[in-house]
Structures are given as C-alpha cells and as structure tokens.
C-alpha cells in the first residue's frame, strides 16, 4: 500500500492501539510484520521503529526546549520546511515545551517524528481532540509527507469524518472480526 492511507476504527478497547503497537514492535506479538517483504524481526528494534513511526495521541517530552527533541543529525532545511508546513516559525526551536498548547504539541510531535523520515506512519488518534483548523492542518501535513515519500499511513481514529477525509480504505476492528470497506485491497505485503 505504498503511499496509501488506511483508516482504522472500532470501539474502545477492541485493540486499535495494540495493533499499532504490535506493528511498531513495542509489544510482543504473534505473526510477522513485513516491510517491503522483510520481516520486522530481521531488523534491530530501534531501526525498525525509526522506519515504522508510531505517533501517539498524547505526546511526552523529555527536554525543556522543543528544539532538543529533534535528532542532532537531522537536515536543518527539512526541519524548517516541516515546521513551516505545520504553521511554525524557526523560533519554535527555543520554545518551552511546558508552555505548548495541546494543538501545538500534536503538531510538533508530528514534526519530531517526520523529521526522522520514517517509511511508514502509524497515527494513533492524531488530530482528534483538536479544533477543525488545527486538525485539517495536521491532515494536510501527513498527506504531503505520504505523497512525497510514498509512505503508507495507518490512521487510527474514533472520528469517522476525519477518517473519511484522510483515507479511502477503512478497517473496522470488532471483537474477533475485521471488516475492510472502501476501495479494493492492494494486496501487497507491506503493512
């Protein structure tokens, strides 16, 4: 599903987050996850997770300033471009994380992940709980990244309207059952 976006929905507790966590290899799981035909277990854990980036709904920060969360080796012009796309100026690098609003945090968490150039994006309720303007901006940035890098996106959300905007395929998780609706499956091994 190169460059496509798969929406995932389902009732609370059905295992949407667990699905993403298993794909990112954060939880022990059965089965094999393939990326371009290569299994996750053949990569070292950290390398796999830098390819398959999971972005959770609520971001945590471990340095006082936002800028320190970007990898030291990252391309400055890429970072600037991403920040601009998310509606920030360069001075955001020196902003105190503790003073960020929810919307700013979500957008910056996206920047923090995208600047590392993952091959697959796993979004867990990203953009939910935001006002429409912020949400749309976020969706636009994800779409641009997806198309520019041919990166598949799996987007978990409670918000059906949001999923309809971002994805043409919808996966509904239910107890013991999975429904796929929308366009025909691409059938590739890339998950």
């Amino acid at each position: 599903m190169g460059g496509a976006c798969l929406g995932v929905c389902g009732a609370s507790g059905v295992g949407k987050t667990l699905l993403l966590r298993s794909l990112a290899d954060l939880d022990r799981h059965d089965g094999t996850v393939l990326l371009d035909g290569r299994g996750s277990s053949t990569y070292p854990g950290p390398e796999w997770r830098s390819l398959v980036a999971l972005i959770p709904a609520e971001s945590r920060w471990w340095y006082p300033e936002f800028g320190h969360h970007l990898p030291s080796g990252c391309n400055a012009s890429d970072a600037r471009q991403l920040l601009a796309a998310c509606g920030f100026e360069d001075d955001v690098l020196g902003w105190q994380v503790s003073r960020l609003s929810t919307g700013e945090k979500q957008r910056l968490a996206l920047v923090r992940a995208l600047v590392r150039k993952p091959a697959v994006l796993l979004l867990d309720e990203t953009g939910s709980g935001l006002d429409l303007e912020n949400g749309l901006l976020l969706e636009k940035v994800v779409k641009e990244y997806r198309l520019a890098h041919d990166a598949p996106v799996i987007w978990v959300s409670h918000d059906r309207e949001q999923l309809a905007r971002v994805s043409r395929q919808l996966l509904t998780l239910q107890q013991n059952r999975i429904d796929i609706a929308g366009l025909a499956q691409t059938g590739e091994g890339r998950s």
Partner: protein
Amino acid sequence: MNVARLSSIDLCIAAGLVVLLALLSFRLKLGLERQMIYSAVRMTVQLLLIGMVLQYLFASRTWWLIVVVSLVMLVAAGAEVRSRLKHKIRGFFGFGVGAGSMFVSSFSVTLLALLVIINQHPWYEPRYAIPFLGMLLGNTMTGVALASDRMTSLFYEQRETLEQRLMLGQTWREAVADLRRDCMRTGMIPIINSMAAAGLVSLPGMMTGQILGGSPPVEAVKYQILIMFLIAAGTGFGVICSIMMIERHMFDKRHRLRMEKLAAAG
C-alpha cells in the same frame, strides 16, 4: 584496654529513659509507645544474640562458619533492599538486584580490604572480617536502596516518555540515559555529603566506639578514614551495579519496555 564495664543496672538506667519516653508518648497521645517498646526489645534481643554469635565466632575462627554468617548477612541485605522499593520488581530478580549489588558494594570491597589493606593471618580473621562486612553492608545499603527505589519509581512514572523515545527509534540505552544519571546521583549524593560532614558535624560511630574502647584517637581516625573510603567506593559501585541491572532487566532484546516486570506500588 581499660573499658568501663557496663553492668545490667547501667543498661537498665538507659532503658528507663526509653520507658519514660514511652510513658510520655502515652500521656501525649502520640500512639508511638507500643512500637517504641517493641523496637527497643527487638533491638536488645537481636544485639544480645549477635553478641553471642560473634563471641563464639571470634573464639572458633572457623572459616566456613564465617562464610555462612557473611552469606546470611548478604541475603538479609538483599531482602532489605527489595523491601524498600515502592514498585517491586517481580520474581527472583527483585531480590537478585539487591543481593547482587550489595555483593558488589560490600563483599568485594571487604575482601579487598581484608586481603590487601588489613593483611591479617588468617585473612578471614573474624575480628576484622565481620565488623567490616557489617559496616559496609549497613552503610552502602542506604545508597543502593535509594537509587533502586528511584529507578523503579521513575520507570513507573515515566513509562510513556520512555516508550515515546523508543518510538522515535532510540535504543533503550538512549531512552534511559537521563533516568540513569538522575538515579546514580540520588544514590551517591548522601555518602558524598556525609564524607564532607564527617568530623565536623558528626563523629562517626565506629571511631567513637574505638575511642571508647581505648584506642588512641589518631589510630581510630585512621580506621575511620579507611572505612569512609570503602563505604564511599562500595556505595558507588553498588549503585552503578543496581541501576545497570534494573535498566537491563526492564528492556528486552528488541528494545521493548517490559512494564509487566514491575509491580504497582505496594
């Protein structure tokens, strides 16, 4: 040695003070009297027993008996470290962390002191071996327990932060680097401070005891300096060891955080 011998009556006078305090606690409704008497009795019995054991040990000088006593002390210290963790590490490893790091902090350092510095014959001379080991176990335990408790608590409180660092492709070593530094500081700062305060603010117990026992103060001081160095080094090594054991244990080969290895508070 001309130690003023203590009679039972002397001890009873001192015990009378504790009883007085207990009465006062009852009168002031502090509710501490029961606990106070219990602890006082327990202390007396334990010390009398250890006094008898030591007397026998010093007289017999059997090496394997000393090894057995040392191991019992080590196991007790390991269990004590475990019991001081707010978030216990599940399974035998929880005890292993304590015992392992207390072994590093106290056993190895005591052994070095006995073999290289004290240099008595036989090297396991109980008059040196047991007090050295006891003092090191007792004094390094605080640091090791503090550091381990902080480490497991931080793992619990910051599990989401740790995972989000892993999600960005960090290795477990990168993800815990800040916690590790924090906990190692927590474990080592008290002993560093008490080295600075020794002699000015406090007269260390061992030195005081030696002086009471009739040693010239300068000799007593030299022993105290030696023991402070050993405690500081032992604490440091023990803290490093416990932190490294815990952090390694909490992640698996795929660099996944394994929170199920940690129990909730209690």
